[in-house]
């Protein structure tokens, strides 16, 4: 219902370059040019396509590091492109949508898109998302930082626990499972459904509808200020995203 940029300035480092090849699939030439300009300014190599067919062909031949896909293409529905790409590639897909609905976003994420941006979005938002997904896709899970720090809180994956000022916090198994699922895919928005599936292992009992209540309880334990969460970010109507705080 709303597309106000969600405090994105906070995790953007403007000087950081993008050293990757990005494929843009969008039928609007102005958008393609503007996107290319923003990304190229930061060092990215850009290829673009105006149709889904052309885009899929380019994805196969160029093997890009990331795909920016407009959902409203003239020839093939964007979600078909998304599904076909996913069939053979793990390339991060950032979807652009002019539609204003959370249901649409959830559908795209569940289809295998890694992220979405609702038009009109800003360049800072775009660059931050692109960078986060490039980083995530190039880092294997084993290479994740063993310890994530946010203020006085430490999340230690080796010791499998969260600590405040060195003291272990009492997380229930479910809370730890939620935290681990999100933190290992940091920067990526997980839909409610994806979280249910990961944590409840596809047994959607009565508890799954209390996901938001579990998140609230978890935040109360690990967030420095639970009323202004920095680690577990809510994507309204869509899901949750774990954000690794930048070292100050």
């Amino acid at each position, binding site marked *: 219902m709303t597309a106000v940029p969600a405090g994105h300035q906070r995790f953007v480092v403007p000087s950081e370059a993008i050293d990757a090849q990005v494929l843009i699939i969008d039928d609007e030439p102005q958008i393609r040019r503007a996107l290319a300009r923003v990304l190229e300014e930061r060092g990215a190599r850009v290829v673009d396509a105006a149709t889904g067919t052309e885009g899929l062909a380019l994805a196969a031949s160029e093997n890009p590091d990331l795909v920016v896909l407009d959902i409203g293409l003239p020839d093939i529905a964007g979600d078909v492109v998304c599904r076909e790409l996913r069939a053979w590639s793990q390339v991060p897909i950032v979807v652009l949508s002019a539609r204003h609905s959370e249901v649409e976003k959830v559908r795209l994420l569940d289809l295998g898109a890694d992220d979405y941006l609702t038009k009109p979005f*800003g360049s800072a938002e775009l660059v931050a998302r692109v960078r986060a997904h490039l980083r995530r896709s190039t880092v294997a899970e084993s290479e994740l930082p063993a310890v994530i720090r946010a203020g006085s809180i430490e999340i230690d994956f080796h010791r499998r626990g969260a600590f405040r000022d060195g003291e272990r916090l009492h997380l229930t198994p479910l809370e730890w499972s939620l935290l681990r699922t999100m933190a290992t895919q940091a920067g990526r928005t997980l839909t409610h459904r994806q979280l249910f599936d990961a944590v409840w292992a596809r047994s959607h009992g009565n508890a799954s509808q209390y996901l938001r209540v579990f998140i609230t309880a978890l935040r109360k334990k690990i967030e420095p200020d639970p009323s202004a969460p920095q680690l577990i970010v809510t994507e309204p109507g869509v899901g949750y995203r774990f954000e690794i705080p930048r070292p100050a």
Partner: protein
Amino acid sequence: MKRSRIWLLSTAVVLIFVAIMVPYRETVDEVHVVLPMLLMILLASSIGGERLGFFLAAVGFVAIDIIFQRPFGTFSLRKPHDLTVLVSFFVTAAISTRLLSRAQFQAAEARRRSAELQRMAELGADMLSATSTTAALERVALAMCDILGARRCRVTRGTAADAQDVVAEVTVAAATGAVDVTETTAPLRFPLQADGELIGEMQVEGVDPAALGRTRASTLQALAQYAALGLDRMQLAAHAAYADSLREADRMKDMVLASVSHDLRTPLTTIKLLAASLARGGEGAAMQIEEEADRLSRMVGDLLDLSRARAGELTLAMDVNTLEDLVGAATRQMAPMLGDRRVTRRVVDDEGPLVGRFDFVASLRVVVNLMENAAKYSGPVAPIDLVARREGGELVIEVLDRGPGVAEDDLGRIFIPFFRSEAVLYDVGGAGLGLPMAKMLAEAQGGGLRYTPRPDGGSIFTFTLPAHHATFEPGFDDQAPDSD
């Protein structure tokens, strides 16, 4: 048969009977004359009417007195022997004649009423089946002319004399009455009412006074009522057509709005991306371009949402959610707009999480709108307070500011779309949709939004949502789900 002929004929019959009986007057008793004569009088009065009956009774009376009562040949009421017979004869004849003619009159009247009723029923059916409301009204007018033998009948709409317009008019070629009464009779006017309100008039010209005399007032009233119904139906049809066109226009507006706001997003994206590029190149105004593009996008989005909500196209996803999550999301979303402004957040969750069943996105919109409103109307560094708590069966979020509050005059209007207080002189941006939208979204979820003045200045907006009453224990289903 003409009246005079009936009179002559029946008188002749009586006289012939008298003549036949004369030779037998010595032998025959009076009664044999009186009874046949009574029969004849009754027969005559049933054909020729009451007066003929009385006339023949008188003739018979005289004839009996002179011819059949002794002494024969004289008329005298002093024949004491037979006076009783005579008087009985006359009274019997008179009473029977009177009764007969009354019965005849009533039968005729009943026939007439039945015909009238039949006619009204047919008219009613006619009106219902009439292809247009004008045709229906014309049928009523025609019936009116017919019944009153009138020359012209017209139905007008409206009340003020100058605003009347003729909606149906019927002119009959030649009046059925024999006399030309056009000049002598003033037009009859019937006011037409619907729901106790005057909506028009029926005027009848050239009325035949005899026909008017015959027609009962209730018939005329019924006709006027028909005309009023027809006129009312005509106006309803006009209203319906108008409402249809309004609905269509409304639909078009929504479509245009949806398509414009959708199509605006692409150029707005380009503007924002290019503005950011310019900003990197050192262009100072570029940030402002981006901000204005955002503002434009928000305004269009607000309009679109409001028109969707009004069209009943608002779909809510009612899920178990917490106020804590809501406060956190609102804080994050508002961060860029609030800048250095101090926002205090107080979440009263000593008795467990603030759980409710509500639509997260819609509720977030409510809180964000309230915070934006608070930021807009209070000074650039004035603090905003946010309180989340439980109160009985309700979850409550309060947004408190130190702005000017709401003027007494504006209290009833702040939740009306596009209302902007005259008490606020500076332009605060926005289209005046934030609070109306918030109220609509709150109420759509079974909650509410109200304003109270804040002690020591400022506003308190209280957003309530129904609390969720499940017996929820954090961890009740919290076994190790998948160990690694």
